[in-house]
């Protein structure tokens, strides 16, 4: 499929589905056990959520709450024990890896490279699912990769080696590769984990702009309460494998609820933007 027709399809779908549900997670559950004979080590209880184009969904919770598991179920990397995940009405699990990669882009926490590659080579990897296996990169592919780098403000990194750029720069290049996939759904697993504050804000600002411009549906896993409050349209609050609440930040950010989930005293106030702001109280 050429990039041109992909783009056309993209626009058509964007228009038609602007106000429709793009991602629908329906009663999805999961159980992980090292030994089938034993009780599962970890379970995710039935979870449901829905997201529209252009929407940013934050999956929020402390460690081991099942955030990443939920993300992997959405990406199709894990098969749910029950329930299903629909993307534009298709079950993501039953798509071929190629088709899935054309619709869903996943940004992992860390990307390890075995042999050194330049940033542009890395971003071009995002075009893999749009190419026939033996074809070389087309002009379109190169253009899309260039745009993707520009969109995350990393055009100047193009010829740098991946192992010689900073963590924040690397995260931008990884995001650019995901954009080069021209996905409908963008999944990010703790994208801000190793970034300083400025890089975190920069990345999430870019993400919000991109979601709005390209009508991506974005799902971000994070445990940064304030970043989620600031950037998410919906928050999925998780604790010990259970989904406690789904809704806009304002409805989720209640002091008692968050204190109970995060096991620490905190205060919640409403910021100037109308979004809640959390302060962790130490030492009481």
């Amino acid at each position, binding site marked *: 499929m050429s990039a041109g027709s992909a783009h056309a399809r993209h626009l058509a779908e964007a228009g038609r589905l602007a106000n429709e549900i793009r991602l629908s997670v329906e009663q999805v559950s999961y159980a992980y056990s090292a030994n089938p004979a034993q009780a599962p080590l970890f379970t995710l209880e039935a979870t449901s959520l829905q997201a529209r184009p252009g929407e940013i969904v934050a999956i929020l919770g402390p460690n081991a709450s099942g955030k990443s598991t939920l993300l992997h179920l959405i990406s199709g*990397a894990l098969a749910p024990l029950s329930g299903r995940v629909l993307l534009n009405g298709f079950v993501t699990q039953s798509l071929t890896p190629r088709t899935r*990669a054309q619709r869903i882009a996943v940004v992992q926490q860390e990307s390890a490279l075995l042999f050194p590659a330049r940033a542009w080579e890395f971003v071009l990897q995002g075009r893999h699912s749009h190419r026939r296996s*033996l074809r070389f990169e087309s002009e379109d592919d*190169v253009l899309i990769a260039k745009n993707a780098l520009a969109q995350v403000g990393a055009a100047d990194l193009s010829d740098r080696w991946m192992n010689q750029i900073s963590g924040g720069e690397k995260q931008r290049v990884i995001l650019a590769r995901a954009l080069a996939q021209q996905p409908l759904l963008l999944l990010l697993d703790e994208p801000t984990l190793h970034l300083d504050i400025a890089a975190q804000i920069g990345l999430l600002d870019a993400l919000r702009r991109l979601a709005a411009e390209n009508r991506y549906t974005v799902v971000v896993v994070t445990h940064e309460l304030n970043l989620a409050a600031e950037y998410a349209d919906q928050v999925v609050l998780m604790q010990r494998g259970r989904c406690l609440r789904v809704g806009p930040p304002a409805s989720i950010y209640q002091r008692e609820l968050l204190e109970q989930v995060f096991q620490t005293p905190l205060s919640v106030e409403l910021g100037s933007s109308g979004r809640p702001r959390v302060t962790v109280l130490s030492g009481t």
Partner: protein
Amino acid sequence: MRPLTLRRLFLECSILVLILFVVVVIAVKFGAVPVSLYALGRDLWHVLLGQRADLSSDYVLIIKNIRLPRILLGIIVGASLSVAGTSFQALLRNPLADPYVLGVSMGASLGSILALIAEPHLSISPALASLLTPLGAFLGAGATIAAVYFLGRREGQIDSATLLLGGVIISSFLSAIIMFLMNTLSGNLRGLSFWLMGDLSTPLQKSAYWFLGIGFLLAAGAIYTTAADLNLLLSGEKEAMHLGVDVPRVRLVVYIAASLLTGLAVSVSGAIGYVGLIVPHAIRFIFGSDHRTLLPTAALGGAIALVFADTLARTIVAPTEVSVGAVTALVGAPLFIYLLRRRLS
């Protein structure tokens, strides 16, 4: 941005074909019996012009029946080992993977030996019997790489150190079995220790070259269809899957094809080490690590390296021949240590 083009691939391959040609000419010239290229060219020219009825039988016998088949074997085996090494490095996400280091060659050797032992006890036609050794080598290679793969997997991810350790242990275990077989069985296993070190000196049946050549093209071709996938596989199986790689399918294709290449190479030439390690690294250093160019250029590079090593092996102390495996190990083992240290630092 300078993306890969077909033109660049052709350019890189042509350079290597040229080098290979020079190495082949050198290999034709040097050997236990001195051959003057000038005299050969002159005589050929005279024969072409009809000034002479035929070529000296020395040329016909030595060059055509001994050196060229040996060079051809070196080309196929070198290319096979190099492509297998490149594939294992991508499949196992380990730059130090090599059929020899991982014990796969040893597995193929054991498979060949078992086939040799079984052959007299099976009542099959000679044509089938000649396929038995390559088949045994293929199965041996496949079983070994499967064992190494499962030994090297920890919590769903391949652990580099465990993988190499597993390869070393399996390799020594298999060579112990081979030693055991060689100690307990006598007779037809003579010369095995020589073959085990790697040997290209024995000319094969004409049909064997066809068999090898077609086998190489099929297996290397199958691996080449996954070239773009292998690029992504290097960043991890999960990441490759998210980028659209059908990881289980690619793994299966590469696993079978690379085992086949190793098995074919070992069944005709014994365990020649380090070609699959040195060559892909050198090629990556020169032409980059994109498998769409790496695979064909590594195949050519492997052919160059092995033909050259074999020329050394047969000329250093001519007419006595050194095992070509000894030559490649002499160069390869220090390089392996260098790569290992660079990786650890």
